[in-house]
C-alpha cells in the first residue's frame, strides 16, 4: 500500500518539477498579481470627493410643491405634508386632526381598505401618518423600483378618503379606549396640559380628542375639514431617494387639479401661562414647569440656541440604561438625577412652533418629594439665567451633541423626506444642513444666558398629575422667577 502511494508521489514529483515548491504551490505562482490581465476592463474607482446631492423643488400652478433629493440608498421614502393641524380646528371640529391621523390609510373612493393594505404589503412598504399642531404628515417608504405605485397610492389616500361611517365609528371607539388609558402615559398628558394651559388661542387646541369630541365627530365633519384645509398651496410632496424629474412625471398629473385656496391666516395665539392640576391615584407624581420662547422656527438663531440649550440640560429617566453618549453628562443628569434618589425622571423638553415655542423641565418623583423637586427644577432654570454658572466645556459638549444628532438623523431616508417637507412648509425652501451646523457653532455662552433670561421673564406654566396637593402653589413658584 505504501509502495503504491510512494510510486504515485514519485509520478507527481515528475510533473511539478521542484518538490518543495510543489508543497507551497498556490495559484498565484501561475500568474503574478502585479501585472494586469489583458481582457479585463476595470470599473472606475470612487472619486475622492462626492458632492452632496441637493434638493430640487418645483412649484405647480396650483401651489403644490414637489421636492426631492437623490440618495444612494436602494429604498425611497415619499411623504405628503399638509400645513394643517390642530390649530386650524374650529370648536365644532375639535379633535378632527387626531381622528384624521387614525383614518389615514383606510378606504378611499377607489379602493377598499383591504385593497390598500394588500397593495402596501405587495410592494413591501411601510405607511405612517402623524398629526401635530401645525403639520399633518402621511409617509410611505419602499424600494425605488416601486415609486410609481407608492406615489399613486399615497396621493389617492390623501385626496380621496371615503370616511365610511362604520370605519369612523370603529376608530372613535379606539380613541375612547385610548382616553381611558391615558393615565398610563402621564407624560403625554402633562405635555398636552402645558400647551392648553399656557396658550390662549388655537395653539391651546388639544392634540388628543376629548370625550365630548368623540361623541360629536362623524364623517361629515371630517370631510368638511379636509376639503377646507387640504388646498393646493398648503401641500408639499417630498421624497428622498428619487430624482425630481421622475417624481414630477408621476405626481404632476395626479396633483395638478387640486384646487388652490387662499393663503391660510395663521391663527394668532397668545401665551398667558397657567396652572393645570389633575388629581389621580398614581404611585408617582408628575409635574412640568414651562416658559415661552418667542420667535419659534421663523427666528432661526433663537431656535438654534434653544436646541443647544435643551441638549445642554438633557436629562431623562433615572433608570435609563445608556452609556456616556446617551447624555448622562448633561447638566440635569449630573446635578439632579445623580444627587437625589427619589426622582424617577427629570428632563428638559422644548416644543417649537412657527412663531413661538415652549421650553421647560418635566419631572416625575415619588409623591412625598414633589415640593422639593419643584424647587430643584426652578433652581436649575434660574441657574441657567445667571452668568458664570455654565462652563465652556458644557456648552461645547452640547454643541457637538446637537451637531452629531442632526447629522445622524439625516442619515435616515424617512427623516430626510420629513425634513424636506417640513422645511418647505415653514421656510418655503430647504436650507442646507451646513448653514444649520454653522449656526450651532456660533452659539456662545452669552447667547445661552440671554435666552435663558428672556425665557424666565415670561409667565410660568405649571402642570401636574398625581398627588397634586403636595405640589406647591402657583404663586409661590412663580415668585421665585420674579427678579427681587
Amino acid at each position: 500500500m505504501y509502495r503504491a502511494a510512494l510510486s504515485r508521489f514519485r509520478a507527481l514529483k515528475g510533473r511539478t518539477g521542484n518538490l518543495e515548491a510543489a508543497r507551497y504551490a498556490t495559484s498565484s505562482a501561475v500568474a503574478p498579481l502585479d501585472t494586469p490581465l489583458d481582457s479585463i476592463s476595470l470599473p472606475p474607482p470612487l472619486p475622492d470627493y462626492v458632492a452632496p446631492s441637493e434638493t430640487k423643488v418645483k412649484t405647480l400652478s396650483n401651489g403644490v410643491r414637489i421636492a426631492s433629493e437623490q440618495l444612494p440608498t436602494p429604498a425611497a421614502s415619499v411623504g405628503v405634508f399638509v400645513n394643517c393641524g390642530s390649530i386650524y380646528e374650529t370648536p365644532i371640529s375639535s379633535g378632527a386632526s387626531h381622528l384624521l391621523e387614525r383614518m389615514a390609510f383606510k378606504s378611499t373612493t377607489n379602493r377598499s381598505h383591504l385593497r390598500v393594505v394588500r397593495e402596501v404589503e405587495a410592494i413591501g412598504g411601510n405607511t405612517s401618518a402623524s398629526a401635530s399642531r401645525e403639520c399633518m404628515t402621511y409617509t410611505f417608504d419602499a424600494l425605488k423600483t416601486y415609486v410609481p405605485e407608492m406615489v399613486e397610492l399615497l396621493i389617492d389616500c390623501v385626496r380621496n378618503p371615503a370616511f365610511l361611517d362604520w370605519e369612523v365609528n370603529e376608530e372613535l371607539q379606539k380613541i375612547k379606549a385610548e382616553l381611558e388609558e391615558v393615565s398610563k402615559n402621564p407624560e403625554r398628558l402633562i405635555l398636552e396640559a402645558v400647551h392648553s394651559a399656557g396658550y390662549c388661542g388655537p395653539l391651546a387646541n388639544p392634540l388628543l380628542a376629548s370625550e365630548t369630541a368623540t361623541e360629536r365627530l362623524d364623517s361629515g365633519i371630517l370631510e368638511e375639514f379636509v376639503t377646507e384645509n387640504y388646498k393646493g398651496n398648503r401641500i408639499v410632496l417630498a421624497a428622498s431617494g428619487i430624482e425630481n424629474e421622475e417624481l414630477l412625471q408621476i405626481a404632476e398629473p395626479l396633483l395638478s387639479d387640486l384646487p388652490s385656496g387662499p393663503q391660510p391666516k395663521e391663527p394668532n395665539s397668545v401665551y398667558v401661562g397657567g396652572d393645570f392640576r389633575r388629581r389621580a391615584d398614581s404611585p408617582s407624581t408628575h409635574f412640568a414647569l414651562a416658559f415661552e420662547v418667542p420667535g419659534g422656527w421663523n427666528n432661526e438663531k433663537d431656535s438654534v440656541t434653544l436646541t443647544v440649550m435643551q441638549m445642554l440640560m438633557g436629562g431623562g429617566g433615572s433608570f435609563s440604561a445608556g452609556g456616556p453618549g446617551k447624555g448622562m453628562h448633561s447638566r440635569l443628569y449630573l446635578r439632579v438625577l445623580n444627587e437625589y434618589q427619589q426622582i424617577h425622571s427629570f428632563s428638559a423638553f422644548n416644543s417649537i412652533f412657527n412663531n413661538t415655542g415652549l421650553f421647560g423641565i418635566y419631572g416625575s418623583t415619588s409623591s412625598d418629594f414633589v415640593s422639593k423637586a419643584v424647587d430643584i427644577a426652578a433652581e436649575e432654570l434660574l441657574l441657567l439665567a445667571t452668568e458664570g454658572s455654565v462652563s465652556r466645556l458644557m456648552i461645547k459638549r452640547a454643541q457637538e451633541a446637537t451637531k452629531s444628532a442632526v447629522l445622524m438623523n439625516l442619515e435616515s431616508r424617512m427623516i430626510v423626506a420629513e425634513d424636506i417637507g417640513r422645511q418647505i412648509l415653514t421656510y418655503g425652501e430647504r436650507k442646507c444642513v451646513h448653514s444649520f451646523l454653522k449656526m450651532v457653532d456660533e452659539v456662545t455662552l452669552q447667547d445661552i444666558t440671554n435666552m435663558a433670561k428672556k425665557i424666565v421673564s415670561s409667565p410660568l406654566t405649571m402642570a401636574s398629575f398625581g398627588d397634586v396637593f403636595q405640589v406647591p402653589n402657583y404663586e409661590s413658584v412663580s415668585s421665585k422667577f420674579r427678579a427681587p
Partner: protein
Amino acid sequence: MASFLKSFLDPKKNPLAAMHMKSVSKRLRRYGLRYDDLYDPLYDLDVKEALNRLPREIVDARNQRLKRALDLSLKHEYLPEDLQKMQTPFRSYLQDMLALVKKERAEREALGALPLYERTIP
C-alpha cells in the same frame, strides 16, 4: 340576456309578475312589514354585517316593525285598515348595503385573505 330576464320578471310588463307582487304586498301590509325585514341575520352573516353598518334609527325601526308583526301574529290579528293603507312594503333600506358587503367579501376572497366571519351550524 339579463334585460330579457328582467322584462320577463318586470311587473309592469308581465301580468303574472304583477299578480305575484300584489299578493306579496298584501301579505306584508297585513302585518306591517317591509320586504327587507324578512332578511334574517342569523341565516346569512352578510345580513348581520350590513345591519351593523346601517344607522341606528333604521335598525331600530326595523326591530319595532318586527315586534309589531310578532304581536299581531300572536293575537291572530291584522294591522288596522287605515295603517295598512300607509304601509310601504317595497321601500328598500338593506339592498344597497348588502350588495356592498357581498362585494367586499368577494374581493376579500379573490385577494386570498381569510374571511372575517364564517357561519357555524351549532
